[in-house]
């Protein structure tokens, strides 16, 4: 019952919620980012990061460092935190935590299939996969020729199996189809996650609905903008939108017929939460849109920590860590390539 979670949540979830809030206190602040932005090279970055929670993961790295090494080790911390929480969790929290991984699994599947299409080596691709999205038999993905084989050989044993029902065609895998497959899988995953959160009820349902609805709307806008000018038809585009969120169903109808960015802007400005995002950008500019969306997402994720006794804090923590790793990657790349003026283009400050 909503409002009375405080009475029974701590039986199974109290310890883990306290742990995740402790991790959240270790996220980098604006002061840390300012220090990092003033570094001259990657060794300086490593020195600054050794004072944060990333210290134990980076201290044994020999110089010269690469950007990819830094990102890899920081991702390792995220994975360690996640695995520690997952092994302590009971139902339904363990199912909730598993759901957080499926997005990464989908990204890994698409990465390997695309890489195979472009004749890359499987081992090299597996090393590039996100560690949270690994599953057994992921290497077998390189063997599949079309989607039906993909499903039959590999994916039927993974948790992604139920998301595949709309994708089962015998078409060959090419770039366009792979992108459509990615978006269809992600749509099914988001809807499934949304239904699961609704079933949990209470504060979890309310907070996760808001976060997932924003995710769905953001993906709808990105799909629209990326498919302007391609041969994706309007009906196909509409099939890729999730059926929940602020834009469902009327916003989706209007987005499906958009042909350029200003029309997209016209559609989105009818919705007050998104009007604030789009008003920050002047006409004709779309590079800032990604950063504006990230900022809005981070704002909502930080708000999830304001309430106690729900599962949304776990989801929010994982997303905030991922954003932080993206920030670190951007800063490292700018420092390594000596373009420090562009650092502030893409760093999203959290607190």
């Amino acid at each position: 019952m909503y409002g009375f979670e405080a009475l029974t949540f701590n039986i199974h979830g109290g310890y883990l919620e306290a742990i995740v809030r402790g991790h959240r206190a270790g996220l980098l602040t604006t002061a840390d980012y300012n220090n990092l932005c003033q570094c001259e090279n990657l060794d300086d970055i490593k020195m600054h990061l050794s004072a944060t929670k990333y210290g134990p993961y980076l201290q044994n790295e020999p110089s010269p460092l690469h950007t990819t090494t830094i990102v890899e080790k920081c991702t390792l911390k995220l994975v360690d935190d996640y695995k520690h929480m997952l092994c302590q969790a009971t139902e339904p929290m363990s199912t909730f935590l598993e759901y957080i991984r499926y997005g990464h699994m989908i990204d890994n599947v698409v990465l390997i299939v695309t890489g195979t299409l472009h004749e890359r080596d499987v081992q090299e691709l597996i090393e590039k996969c996100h560690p949270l999205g690994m599953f057994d038999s992921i290497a077998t993905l390189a063997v599949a020729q079309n989607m039906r084989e993909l499903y039959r050989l590999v994916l039927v044993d993974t948790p992604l199996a139920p998301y595949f029902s709309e994708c089962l065609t015998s078409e060959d895998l090419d770039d366009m189809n792979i992108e459509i497959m990615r978006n269809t899988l992600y749509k099914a995953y988001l809807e499934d996650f949304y239904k699961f959160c609704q079933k949990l009820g209470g504060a979890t349902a309310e907070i996760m609905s808001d976060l997932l609805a924003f995710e769905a709307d953001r993906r709808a806008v990105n799909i629209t903008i990326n498919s302007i000018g391609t041969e994706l038809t309007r009906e196909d585009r509409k099939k890729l939108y999730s059926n929940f969120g602020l834009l469902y169903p009327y916003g989706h109808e209007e987005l499906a017929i958009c042909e350029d960015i200003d029309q997209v802007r016209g559609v989105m400005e009818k919705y007050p939460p998104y009007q604030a995002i789009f008003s920050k950008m002047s006409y004709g500019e779309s590079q800032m849109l990604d950063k504006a969306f990230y900022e809005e997402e981070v704002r909502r994720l930080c708000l999830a920590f304001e309430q106690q006794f729900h599962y949304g804090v776990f989801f929010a923590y994982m997303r905030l860590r991922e954003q932080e790793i993206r920030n670190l990657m951007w800063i490292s790349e700018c420092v390594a390539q000596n373009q420090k003026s562009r650092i502030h283009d893409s760093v999203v400050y959290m607190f």
Partner: protein
Amino acid sequence: MITTIAVRDRRMSGMGVDASSWGAALVRISPYTFSAIGIAISIGVSVLGAAWGIYITGSSLIGAAIEAPRITSKNLISVIFCEAVAIYGVIVAIILQTKLESVPTSKMYDAESLRAGYAIFASGIIVGFANLVCGLCVGIIGSSCALSDAQNSTLFVKILVIEIFGSALGLFGVIVGIIMSAQATWPTKLISGIFIVIWILSLVSRRKNLCEDSESFFWDS
């Protein structure tokens, strides 16, 4: 058999209930049953509230202390506040059980006796449930206190003030419960008092008779 039923009917109508109704069944429950249930609720439900509060606080405290070990000693205060709630329940249960007295069977269903039984029962319920919700309240606030203290140590004292107000709720219950239990006077004292008075009077009158007899004896001799 018929005379006892007639006596019972007269007594019931004296008390204002129809002899074959649920009300009649209620007033025929022994006041000791009510008293015993009251004492059990006083201690049992208080301890339930205290335990509930302690686990809510304790699980958050343990998890938060991993990243911020400095909070452990201060935040044990929250656990102590929850424990105090259980102690209130024990104290009131001990007080209530000293109020139990024996009543002769003829007096057991008198209004005075029923009143004493109900007073102990009500006192137990008051204390039990006030302590249940007090323990819950203090436990939930204690959990938030531990998590906030781990993030920002200036918040601890401020949230402790909220907890102190919460623990006052249990104290209200104890006060009202003890006042209620002072009502628990059983009828024996009055009757035995009358017996004692009669017995003393009889002693005095016997002594007076003895003196008059001895005086007349002296006069005669």
